[in-house]
């Protein structure tokens, strides 16, 4: 394995479509629930421990070789919002395209055949990490970091928030991210041993509800 592959995969400029998604920040900004760096931090912390934890565990489990079809079904069951399921599959499809170009391999080709409309993004992220020779912890870190960096970047654009403040939020969340990554990897290990029911299922009610509100808007800046 090469450590540098982690930087390639985790790079915000990795062309996998993430830039057009706010991770729920656009809806939260419009509802007046994110008005500055403090709210953003609270929002990101909530995401980290819910959608982030689930994504991290799914990604790590994919690296460990758990059947992607089972992981995708588990992701579906953990995503009640149809708008979020659609966004996750679109992003998964976009990521798979980028991953196949970056780390071509038979496993990624096979997964593309199984999911012509895309698999859930965290599952693909894990498979991409696996193809790049990375480990379960690397994949979990990528998924968790994405779960908070997306909303932070989006909020900079939506609120003209000082980018230094937004980056400060991400830096302050780092120790918590370490802890959640460890727990995601632990859960992934249990899922590999005992089945996908062992994956975490933490949810943030407003993430789901507001994703539906956002999807119904006639005009928006971000896809989700």
């Amino acid at each position, binding site marked *: 394995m090469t450590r540098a592959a982690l930087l390639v995969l985790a790079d915000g400029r990795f062309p996998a479509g993430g830039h057009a998604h706010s991770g729920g920040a656009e809806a939260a900004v419009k509802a007046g629930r994110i008005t500055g760096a403090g*709210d953003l931090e609270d929002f990101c912390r909530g995401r980290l421990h819910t959608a982030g934890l689930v994504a991290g565990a799914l990604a790590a489990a994919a690296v460990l070789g758990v059947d992607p079809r089972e992981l995708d079904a588990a992701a579906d069951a953990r995503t009640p919002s149809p708008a979020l399921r659609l966004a996750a599959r679109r992003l998964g499809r976009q990521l798979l395209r980028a991953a196949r170009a970056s780390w071509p391999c038979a496993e990624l080709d096979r997964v593309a055949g199984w999911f012509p409309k895309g698999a859930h993004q965290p599952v693909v992220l894990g498979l991409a990490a696996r193809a790049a020779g990375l480990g379960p912890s690397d994949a979990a870190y990528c998924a968790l970091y994405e779960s908070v960096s997306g909303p932070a970047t989006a909020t900079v654009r939506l609120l003209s928030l000082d980018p230094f403040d937004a980056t400060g939020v991400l830096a302050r969340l780092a120790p918590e991210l370490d802890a959640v990554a460890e727990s995601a990897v632990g859960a992934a290990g249990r899922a590999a041993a005992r089945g996908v*029911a062992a994956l975490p299922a933490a949810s943030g009610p407003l993430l789901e509800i507001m994703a539906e509100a956002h999807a119904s808007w006639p005009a928006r800046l971000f896809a989700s």
Partner: protein
Amino acid sequence: MTLAGVRADAPGPATAGVRGDAPGTALTGARADLPGGVRADARIVARADGRGGTALPVLDGSGPLAPRRTRGSGGEARVMVVGAMSGPLGGDRFTLHARVEEDARLHLGSSAATLALPGQAPGEARYDVRLDVADGAELRWLPEQLISATGSDLRVTTLAELAAGARLVLREEQVLGRAGETPGLLTSRLTLRVAGRTVLDQELSCGPGAPGGWDGPAALAGHRAVGQLLVVRPEFAERPPGARMLGECAALMPLPGPAALVTALAPDALRLRRVLDEARELLG
């Protein structure tokens, strides 16, 4: 919701016998005292009686979880779970298992809200609900609210296991604290499987001690009541209800299976119930 005072022994030590009813009230098998906590099990089996009605060959349980048959309507049997004590308290373990066999119809409710309180015993309390519904059968599980009082620590799991042709209406309402009170720690996992496939698996954790951000803009944002209405119907496989908002903080969401979920947030229990009632009407 007068549960706080019902459990007369609540402040006392949680030793065997102290928290039980008087001997001879035929509780054996239905509840037993754990070291430092109460164990209560309720079991209900609903079976089609062959004449268009539903019989209840098994109706076990007592103390905190006592199922009582009440008047049903049509072919539906109706059972209320009557809590003779409040709880669960820390260290308690409650289980409720309802099985609805082929073509039977059961409406299962509770007579009052469940109030999670802190206990003398260390550790969390657990309340596990298991619902099995067979082909052609229908279960309506419509308990009253679960209130998480200051200092309580409760983990609830609800697992609904349905056959492909089964129907379900399930309501869950969590209220964070009695009026104006800081809530306890409440973790609730809801899992739905239809024909062996997991359609919904979701956990909500809230209150002091829950993972960070639980009251922030991604999760509850200050709302003190959160609820879900889960409706499963075989016909949803072909014609799922469309996703839509139900007011500002509730959404109806078709799930990846023959089911739809309404998730709602509200400032209080009353307003939450109103939204979920409207959702129930909408889904028919």
